[in-house]
C-alpha cells in the first residue's frame, strides 16, 4: 500500500473541489451571504378582486416598489395617492443624461454633460432572465429591452501587482486556469493518486473530462499549441491566403497565474444573477421608472418630503413639506398606507408603529457604493481592443470598468462605467468631492486603457452615501438580523405596511422591490376585503 495517495478525499469532495476550481461555489456562497443570490417567486400579474370601492391608500415613495403598488391598487379600484421626495419617478431606478443636474448631500452639484443618448445608471443596471416580475412589468409597460453582457472574454482582468501591471484578457486567464487545473487533476488521477476518491470507471471519465474541459493535449498537458490558442486566443489570428498562418500564444505559467490572483474575478459570471441572459432597458435603466410614472400621472405628488407618519383607528395621516414651494407642512390622509421609504430615511421620521417594526426599521444600516460615468471622444475599447460590452475587473480602487452594451460601432463619443465599487474604496470615494472622484477614476482607468488620457471628456460620480433620498445603496442584512427583524419589518402594523428592496430577500435588486411590493399589496388587500 505504498502507493496509497497522500491525499484522502471522497468522490463528493472531489466534485466539490472541481466546483471550487470552476469558482462558482465560492462566489455563490459569498454572494449568498451578501444576500445577492436567490430566486424570484413571481407567477404572473397579481389579481386583486373585490376591493371596496373608494378605499383610500397612501403610498410613500415613487420607486419601483411604490409605483408597482400604486399601479396595481389603482387598477383594482382603490383610491391611490403617492408622495415622492424627488421631482421624478423611479427612485433608485435612475439614469443620468446630458443636461441633468444632480445635487448630493452637502450641496455639491454636478451638471451632466453626456452627449445625446448616452447615460450612466447610478443604481441598478442589469436584469437577470429569472427576475420575472421585473421583466413582466417591462413587457406590460412597453419598456424595450436589449441584452446586457456580463462576461466578455475580450475584456480584461487587471492587477497592478502582476504581469508588470499589464492587463490580461479574461479569455487567457480563464483558459489557463482551467487548463492548468485540468492538467494537475488528470495527472493525479492517471497516477492513481485519487484512487480513494474516485472509482476506476469514474476516473477514466474524469480524465477524459479534464482533457476536454481544460484543452489538454494527448499527453494530458496544457501547453502552447493550436488547441490552447483556440481557447486563450492567438498573438495573430488565423487568416486567409498567403498571410493566413496564425501566431500561437504562450499560456501563463501556473505559478504566475496563481500569484497574480487574477483568478479571483473569473467566477463573477457564474453567479445566478450574472448568468446569461441578462437585459437592460434601451436608453437607460431609468426608462422603467419613467414608464411607471407616465402610467400613474397625477397620482404622484412630487417634491414631497415626508416628516411624520401617524396612524389611528381609522387611517393614516402623513405630514410632508413641499420642497419646491416651501410653505407650511401639508398633510395627506388615507385609510391605509404602504410605505416604501428606505429604512435609512424612515428610521429618522417619527412614525406610530409598534416596537417590533420600529426596531426592525432601526436595525438596517445602508451600504456604501459608488459609480462613476466617463465620457470619451471615441469608443476606443471597441475600435482598438474589440471589447463590445461586458466588463473588466481590476485591483485598483475603481474595481471595475463597464463597457456600454449598446451603440456599438458609433463614431461619436461613448460613456463607460469607470468605477463601480463597494466597501472601503467606496467610502474613500464618497469622502472626495465629485470632481476628484472623476479625476481619480480617470487616473486608475488609464492604467488599463492608456487611451483614457487623450480621449477623456467629462464625467459624473454618484456616491450612494451622498444620495439625499437613500443615504446609501441598499439595506444591509445579515442572517442574524433577518432572524430577528425581517418578519417584523414585513408584517402589517395596524394600517401601515412596508415594502421595498429592504423588505425582500433579494436586497439591492429591483426584483426584490417589486416582489416585496406585490406581497405587501396582496396582504393589505386581503385585510381590507376581510374588514
Amino acid at each position, binding site marked *: 500500500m505504498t502507493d496509497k*495517495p497522500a491525499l484522502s478525499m471522497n468522490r463528493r469532495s472531489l466534485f466539490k*473541489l472541481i466546483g471550487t476550481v470552476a469558482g462558482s461555489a465560492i462566489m455563490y456562497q459569498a454572494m449568498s451571504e451578501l444576500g445577492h443570490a436567490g430566486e424570484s417567486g413571481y407567477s404572473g400579474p397579481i389579481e386583486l378582486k373585490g376591493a371596496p370601492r373608494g378605499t383610500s391608500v397612501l403610498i410613500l415613495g415613487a420607486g419601483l416598489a411604490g409605483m408597482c403598488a400604486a399601479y396595481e391598487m389603482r387598477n383594482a379600484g382603490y383610491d391611490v395617492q403617492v408622495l415622492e421626495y424627488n421631482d421624478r419617478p423611479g427612485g433608485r431606478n435612475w439614469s443620468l443624461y446630458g443636461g441633468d443636474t444632480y445635487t448630493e448631500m452637502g450641496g455639491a452639484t454636478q451638471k451632466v454633460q453626456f452627449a445625446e443618448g448616452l447615460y450612466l445608471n447610478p443604481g441598478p443596471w442589469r436584469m437577470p432572465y429569472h427576475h420575472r416580475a421585473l421583466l413582466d412589468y417591462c413587457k406590460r409597460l412597453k419598456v424595450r429591452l436589449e441584452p446586457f453582457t456580463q462576461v466578455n472574454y475580450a475584456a480584461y482582468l487587471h492587477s497592478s501587482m502582476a504581469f508588470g501591471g499589464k492587463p490580461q484578457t479574461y479569455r487567457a486567464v480563464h483558459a489557463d486556469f482551467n487548463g492548468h487545473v485540468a492538467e*494537475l487533476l488528470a495527472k493525479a488521477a492517471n497516477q492513481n*493518486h485519487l484512487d480513494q476518491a474516485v472509482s476506476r470507471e469514474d476516473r477514466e471519465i474524469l480524465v477524459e473530462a479534464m482533457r476536454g474541459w481544460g484543452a489538454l493535449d494527448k499527453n494530458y498537458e496544457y501547453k502552447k499549441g493550436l488547441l490552447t490558442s483556440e481557447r486563450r486566443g492567438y498573438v495573430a489570428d488565423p487568416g486567409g491566403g498567403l498571410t493566413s498562418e496564425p501566431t500561437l500564444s504562450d499560456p501563463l505559467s501556473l505559478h504566475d497565474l496563481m500569484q497574480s490572483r487574477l483568478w479571483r474575478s473569473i467566477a463573477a459570471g457564474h453567479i445566478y444573477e450574472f448568468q446569461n441572459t441578462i437585459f437592460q432597458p434601451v436608453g437607460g435603466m431609468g426608462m422603467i421608472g419613467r414608464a411607471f410614472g407616465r402610467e400613474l400621472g397625477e397620482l404622484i405628488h412630487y417634491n414631497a418630503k415626508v416628516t411624520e407618519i401617524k396612524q389611528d383607528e381609522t387611517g393614516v395621516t402623513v405630514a410632508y413639506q413641499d420642497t419646491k414651494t416651501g410653505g407650511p407642512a401639508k398633510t395627506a390622509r388615507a385609510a391605509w398606507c404602504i410605505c416604501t421609504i428606505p429604512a435609512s430615511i424612515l*428610521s429618522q421620521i417619527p412614525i406610530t408603529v409598534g416596537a417590533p417594526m420600529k426596531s426592525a426599521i432601526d436595525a438596517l444600516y445602508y451600504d456604501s457604493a459608488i459609480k462613476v460615468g466617463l465620457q470619451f471622444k471615441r469608443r476606443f475599447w471597441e475600435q482598438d481592443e474589440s471589447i463590445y460590452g461586458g466588463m473588466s475587473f481590476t485591483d485598483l480602487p475603481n474595481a471595475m470598468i463597464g463597457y456600454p452594451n449598446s451603440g456599438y460601432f458609433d463614431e461619436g463619443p461613448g460613456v463607460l462605467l469607470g468605477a463601480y465599487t463597494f466597501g*472601503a474604496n467606496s467610502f474613500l470615494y464618497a*469622502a472626495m468631492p465629485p470632481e476628484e472622484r472623476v479625476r481619480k477614476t480617470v487616473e486608475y482607468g488609464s492604467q488599463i486603457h492608456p487611451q483614457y488620457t487623450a480621449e477623456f471628456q467629462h464625467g459624473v460620480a454618484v456616491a450612494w452615501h451622498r444620495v439625499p433620498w437613500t*443615504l446609501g445603496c441598499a439595506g444591509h442584512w445579515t442572517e442574524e438580523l433577518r432572524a430577528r427583524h425581517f418578519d417584523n419589518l414585513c408584517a402589517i402594523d395596524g394600517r401601515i405596511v412596508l415594502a421595498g428592496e429592504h423588505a425582500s430577500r433579494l436586497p439591492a435588486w429591483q426584483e426584490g422591490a417589486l416582489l416585496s411590493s406585490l406581497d405587501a399589496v396582496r396582504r393589505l388587500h386581503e385585510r381590507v376585503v376581510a374588514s
Partner: protein
Amino acid sequence: MKPRIDILCALTVVIGLLAVLARAPHAQEIYAGGYTQQTGEEIYKGICQGCHMPDAKGAIGAGAYPALAADSRLAAAIYPVTVVLNGQRAMPPFGPSLSDEQVANVINYVRTHFGNHYKDAVTIAAVKAARR
C-alpha cells in the same frame, strides 16, 4: 518515482490554494479592512466626511447626517466609541474594519476639532473594552 512526487507536490500546492479559494469570504470580511489611514485626521478625511461632511456640520436631504461639530453628545467619550464600533440606524458599524487604535484616533480627532474641546482622550484600551 520522481514524476509522481512532483505531481503530488504540485497537487498539494493546488489543494492549498483551493483551500484559500474555498474559504468563502463572509460579508463582514469583504467589507472589512482596506482602511489604511492611521491618524485621526486621515481617517476622518478618508471615511467620516463622506457623510458627516468636511466641516463636520452634517447635511440634510430626505433624511439627515448629524453634525459632529460643536456636538455636546460627544462629551461622554463612550458614546462615539459605541456608535463607531457598532453603527447606529443607517450608519454602518466600523468595529469590524477599524483597529482599536484607529477608532481611538478618529474619535480623539473629532472630539478636539470642529469646535469640540474635550480634553479626556479615548484610550486604545477603552475602545477594546467597548467591543462586544
